[in-house]
């Protein structure tokens, strides 16, 4: 019996996410809507090393705040459906801006793989990216790709299975917010730990979101355990 894996594809708009999705899934895909909203939901699948891998294409977003339906859909899928792996498609020619989303995925506590796409564009601009160092600092595997030429797809497939089998760590670096903020985070973590919410979500993440005055999370906490 093939084991099932769910992979979520995240990434900024214009990062080549759709191309990566098409490369991974080929013809096996179907399009629907996310429940309750009219944001398009694309799903597809492929088999690899005895796994049945289901790929969900999240809406293209720059961050994971609660400001737009796209961002809420992307965030809620990762939080509530808990995919086995999140693949973050990052535009190598625009690394700094794209990493903002990667950092937020890391905060969510998801297992993240960075698919470093558009390496050809970065190279044509003579950017030198130290892939190993990027992987080490972010605490997640990094797969260089040129999705438009279907390069790196096999590596990505292999890395997804490696992460699921625990052969490659993908838990992410620990992000420090500075002494003052960290002090408040740990104080709030303590308060949250005794609440039923802590059973579903990481208390640290909830604390960060409360400090960011994230409307959805504040609302969720107010409603108590009903979520």
């Amino acid at each position, binding site marked *: 019996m093939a084991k099932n894996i769910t992979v979520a594809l995240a990434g900024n*708009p214009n990062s080549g996410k759709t191309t990566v999705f098409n490369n991974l899934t080929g013809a096996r895909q179907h399009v629907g809507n996310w429940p309750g909203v009219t944001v398009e939901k694309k799903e597809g699948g492929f088999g690899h090393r005895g796994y049945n891998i289901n790929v969900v294409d999240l809406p293209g977003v720059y961050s994971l705040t609660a400001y737009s339906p796209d961002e809420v859909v992307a965030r809620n899928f990762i939080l509530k459906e808990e995919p086995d792996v999140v693949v973050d498609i990052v535009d190598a020619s625009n690394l700094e801006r794209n990493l*903002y989303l990667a950092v937020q995925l890391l905060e969510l506590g998801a297992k993240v793989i960075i698919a470093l796409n558009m390496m050809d564009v970065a190279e044509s601009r003579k950017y030198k990216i130290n892939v190993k*160092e990027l992987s080490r600092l972010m605490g997640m595997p990094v797969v260089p790709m040129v999705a438009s030429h279907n390069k790196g797809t096999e590596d990505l497939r292999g890395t997804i299975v490696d992460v699921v089998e625990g052969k490659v760590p993908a838990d992410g670096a620990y992000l420090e917010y500075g002494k*003052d903020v960290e002090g*408040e985070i740990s104080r709030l973590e303590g308060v949250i730990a005794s609440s039923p919410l802590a059973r579903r979500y990481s208390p640290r993440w909830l604390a960060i979101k409360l*400090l960011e005055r994230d409307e959805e999370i504040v609302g969720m906490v107010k409603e108590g355990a009903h979520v």
Partner: protein
Amino acid sequence: MSSEDIIQEAKQSLAHLKKVRGDDAETLIADARYGFISGLMKDVLQKPSVERRTISDKVDKVIINRLLGIPIFLALMYGVFQFTFVLSVPFMDWIDSAFGWLAGQAAGIDGWFGALLADGIIGGVGSVLIFIPPIFLLFIALSILEDSGYMARAAFVMDHMMHKIGLHGRSFVPMIMGFGCNVPAIMATRTIENPKDRLVTILINPMMSCGARLPIYIMLALFFFSAHQGLVVFSMYAVGMVIAILLAFIFRKRLVKGESGHFVMELPPYRMPTIIGVLTHMWERGSVFIARAGTLIFAVVVLIWLLDYTGALEPIGRTFAPIFAPCGFGQWESTVAVVFGVLAKEVVVGTFGTLFGIGGGIVGGTLAFELGWSALTAYSFMIFCLVSVPCVATLGIIRRETNSWKWTGFVAAYTLILAWILATLIYQIGSLFV
């Protein structure tokens, strides 16, 4: 701890941070993230020591220039419609003669079935299908502009003007998408965070002339404006945009007051569009029209044919025709076309095809000879079709996205009234000069 306690504790934390750091926690956290990234970048990324200005930067000096930006946008859009026209004519001729041949064969069949085939199905659906080439070519052109990164620039250029009308550049993207189809365009307003901005962007979207309205313009422009086809069709899109912008200004001032949202306009780098990408996007947008021709349009033209065959259609048309007399097209045939056009805009063309039993390429001439239309009538009719009640699918999506029958009814009402007034003004004032 109760949930209320948690909120209280969080408030204390926020106040504390504000006091000791003088900034919102939100900002402090975002700063920490950016700090983490920029630190990481120093170890990971090596850029060429003196980075030359990229080609993107150089091109942008011209494209997003304060003075040149809007003229460049208009020139490009004009080019798009010229391109659509010039290239599609031979394809349309082929399809037209293929359907002409088919209709000739069907006309040989006796009785009602032959009439249904020749007039209803081949005349009705065929006259819509012949406009598939310009629709697809328009979508190719729009996909190239989008995939290359130009449309993001257009939104950036418009940002300045959009602020003056109480919206911002992000509202411009759904407007451009409306050139394809208003339904996905209205869904795309979900990227607009501010609910009031979003509502106004939805309300004006029907003014953006969709692909289904293109056949009407082409059908009429081919005959009545043969020397300036591209220009006349371009004028429809331009008029639609001007009306949309004026309406946005009025709605924002009178109906949906309040602050407009702030955000940064992204400028993604220019990219060479790939052939596969452009064709895929063309197909994603365009295939809907082929599917509709085989389903919805097919059903409606058969219905129209049936009503016509049984003699029920003309009385319906004659009942409403006086309403459109001041606009210049108070004939029962055009009335029926407009009324059924609410089901789908392609039906306007399909109705003429069915009623006259001819292909879409020569509908214009028939309107001139049978109904006595002039170029002025044709232009008035085009404006009416541009502005009047969007199709039912668009009304449906407006209902779903605004979650309000009130706003949906508002759109239906204002578009109808405005369309009638504009068409009447054009026809009546134009008649004084022609």
